[in-house]
């Protein structure tokens, strides 16, 4: 069906004199503006915004929405993003006035329910991670990485050690090196083995007293659990370093294995992945962190503390790195995470990971004969298959497959990441998808391998646009109207 009305950009729909919002009449005495504000501070005219009617605004954004694929409408196996179902009950509950309509500077005695919720979440995240203390402040995973690295700097400053380096495997997510830089560290890459595990030799070589933190994603970006992790942690600790666990892939090991138990000293969670916070077309997320006891003093402020039978926010923490975000972080996402964890309970969370891993392995078993998986026959919550063979045989690339899948009504996997796999298809089905959906997806992928190359090269055929020119976009950027 064609939803084409009012979809042109807002400014092309605008007409002078049109209005949607009306404001109440002013109920206080009205002096001339000039008497209230200095002339030089005043704008010459109202801002040059589009003029629209409410019916047009609603139709515009409603119809635009139909141009998105989403979890509510499509299977969305985007590797490393954990696109699981976002429970409707969480959306309803987070918007209760008693939670959504709270000002961050209200007196603490008017916030006891909220603070209890956040305190309980701190406790639950510590338990799930097998670590000691939690901060809910960071606004996203990357922000959690950065916060932990700042804590590491403070930690070593206090120890009087000048450690300037952060190490991470070449398969690390881009935010790891970027966070290291923002935190003022030098970033050094550690090789991984052909099967995608940390190259212990290379790690040993690079571990010295300049190394502050080794960042690892485990299960890693290939969906493999690096069984050397215990040994890795020993090496890093022996060298006086700290182990950072990038928790983006926690969906594979909830209640099964805990970072704190396999040697991590600090970690972040991505509640918008693991704990079903909606991705919102690119956010908001949150990036709560959990750390070992020795790092607790450095946590950012504020933290929620239990005081008698009440709860309070504490700011007075002498060793804290200070503030990393205004107010109290992305609370709305944290409330959803709380709802999610409470909805599953301990056994349920374990079942989540078991089914995430079951679904991924099933899909792998259906695809591997046509799309080799260099890492082997087993995976955790996701796997990286290669279209290299298909590319060689039929000139159908990972990108072609991604585009053609859209015609079949599926969102594409993550492609060309991680770079260590050629023509990579990074597939993460998540546990909320049914076997029927997985089969339909596998059937589609396999069917495409049989389709005429031209047909596939021409894909997508059923979307509103096809293969935009990204080079042109970057060469002569048009970033506004």
């Amino acid at each position, binding site marked *: 069906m064609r939803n084409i009305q009012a979809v042109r950009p807002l400014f092309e729909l605008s007409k002078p004199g049109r209005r949607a919002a009306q404001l109440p009449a002013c109920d206080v005495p009205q002096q001339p503006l000039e008497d209230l504000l200095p002339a030089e501070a005043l704008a010459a005219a109202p801002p040059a915004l589009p003029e629209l009617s409410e019916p047009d605004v609603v139709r515009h954004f409603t119809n635009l929405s139909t141009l998105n694929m989403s979890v509510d409408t499509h299977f969305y196996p985007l590797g490393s993003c954990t696109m699981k179902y976002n429970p409707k009950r969480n959306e309803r509950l987070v918007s209760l006035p008693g939670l959504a309509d709270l000002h961050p500077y209200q007196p603490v005695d008017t916030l006891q329910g909220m603070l209890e919720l956040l305190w309980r979440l701190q406790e639950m995240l510590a338990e799930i991670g097998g670590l000691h203390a939690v901060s809910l402040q960071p606004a996203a995973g990357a922000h959690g990485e950065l916060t932990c690295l700042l804590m590491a700097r403070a930690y070593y400053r206090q120890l009087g050690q000048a450690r300037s380096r952060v190490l991470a495997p070449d398969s690390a997510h881009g935010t790891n090196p970027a966070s290291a830089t923002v935190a003022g560290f030098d970033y050094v890459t550690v090789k991984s083995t052909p099967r995608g595990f940390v190259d212990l030799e290379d790690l040993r070589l690079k571990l010295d007293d300049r190394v502050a933190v080794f960042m690892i994603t485990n299960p890693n970006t290939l969906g493999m659990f690096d069984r050397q992790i215990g040994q890795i942690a020993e090496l890093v600790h022996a060298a006086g370093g700290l182990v950072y666990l990038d928790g983006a892939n926690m969906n594979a090991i909830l209640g099964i294995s805990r970072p704190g138990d396999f040697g991590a000293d600090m970690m972040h969670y991505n509640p918008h992945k693991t704990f079903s916070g909606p991705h919102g077309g690119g956010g908001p997320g949150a990036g709560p962190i959990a750390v070992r006891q020795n790092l607790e003093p450095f946590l950012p402020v504020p933290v929620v503390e239990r005081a008698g039978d009440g709860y309070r926010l504490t700011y007075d923490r002498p060793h804290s790195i200070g503030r990393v975000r205004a107010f109290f972080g992305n609370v709305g996402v944290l409330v959803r995470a709380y709802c999610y964890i409470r909805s599953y309970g301990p056994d349920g969370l374990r079942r989540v990971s078991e089914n995430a891993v079951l679904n991924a392995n099933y899909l792998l078993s259906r695809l591997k004969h046509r799309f080799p998986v260099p890492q082997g026959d087993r995976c955790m919550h996701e796997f990286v298959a290669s279209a290299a063979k298909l590319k060689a045989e039929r000139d159908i690339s990972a990108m072609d497959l991604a585009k053609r899948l859209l015609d079949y009504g599926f969102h594409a996997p993550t492609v060309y990441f991680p770079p260590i796999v050629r023509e990579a298809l990074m597939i993460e089905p998540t546990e909320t998808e049914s076997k029927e959906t997985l089969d339909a997806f596998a059937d589609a992928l396999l069917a495409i391998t049989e389709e005429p190359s031209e047909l596939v090269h021409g894909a997508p055929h059923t979307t509103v646009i096809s293969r935009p020119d990204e080079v042109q976009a970057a060469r002569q950027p048009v*970033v506004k109207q």
Partner: protein
Amino acid sequence: MPYLPNTADDESAMLAAIGVKSIDELFAMIPGDLRLTRPLSLPPALTEIDLTNHLGGLAARNVAAGQRACFLGGGSYDHFIPAAVDAIASRGEYYTSYTPYQPEASQGNLQAFFEYQTLITRLTGMDVSNASLYDGGSAAAEAVFMCIAATGRRGRVVAAASVHPEYRQILETHLCNLGIELLTVGTPDGVLSPDDLASAVNDQTACVLLQQPNFFGCVEQAERLGAIAHQAGAKFVVSVDPISLGLLKRPGDYGADVVVAEGQSLGNPMAFGGPYLGIIACREELVRRMPGRITGQTTDRNGRRCWVLTLQTREQHIRREKATSNICTNQGLYALRATIYLSLMGPQGMREVAELCLRKSRYALGKLSAGRRLSPAFSHPTFKEFVVRDRDGAVEALLREAGRAGFFAGIALGRWYPELADCFLVTVTEKRTRDEIDALAAALA
């Protein structure tokens, strides 16, 4: 199990297809000694009914802004959110989608972000906006990083004491870690004095950070201050209240190099502090240092106009340790909400909201200072917030009383400004009525 479709039959069929006996086998790659041998110690599962009662109970132990007339501000504001914003933003196609990596399957988000960027540049008078950052505070920090990189000056960053104290704390966290001085210039009479600024900037100063209207609600002499920054070769970063731009001059028109703002006011709930919306916009010459995602217009293979993520060579997933920032997930849904909000408000709506805030708050300032006890702390013109001094110096007690009388009356400033321990900040948005203001004045008299 609330959201797990696999049945027992599915499970055995899938295990068979995989070629294993049990799910446990699938976890073989995790060494036994690294496995958790007990259930997590978490409270038991709650059904939807139980969860609804539980959350309802927690919510009931908070006092929502709707239950008391809310005169709190300081960076989070009780502005009205039109119903259409919630109605649209609650569509699954928006909030259950992710970053538009596949443009063909994301034109809705991409166009909305392009529209967002356009609206922000028009509102601020700047050349380029990104597609959002976490919040106003981290946006301020990112802006300062941009200036440090652009100027190559790692000596000093100058901020007015009238900038949001928590934003300055975030800066402090980062700059002290990087060994860069954060010089905070006092604002004893409520605004930054040009002379004080002039003596604070030097040839190693990367930028000057100003807030307009400032944390006390006062209108700064932004244009002069910007000129001083530029004379010293420093960049000029301005943090604005987007609502104020319905009335006040655009930072782009008085020399700002980077503009940041907290976008919460634009259709986003207060939600105890987040998620919020980090707005950042800059001049053309700084675009390659811009953090975060940017949407660009292009054409598809059939010449159709469309939108894609662009200039990605700035970003972490391409440049890794050389990226301009480490941000990945941003605040897409809240940028969308702001886009809808601004579409509904239009030029007239924004002008009227700003005027209502101005007039009502100034009326409130008059009313509150009419009594014996309170007086204006500063003499400079204010926009929608103002600081009053309690002659009895018992701010906490006074605010507590007002609370019992049914008001969130204001924010005590002592926690950030010891010298203002006898003062508090009062905010009046378009939602507050004259009756509420009069009643507040009575309660505080």
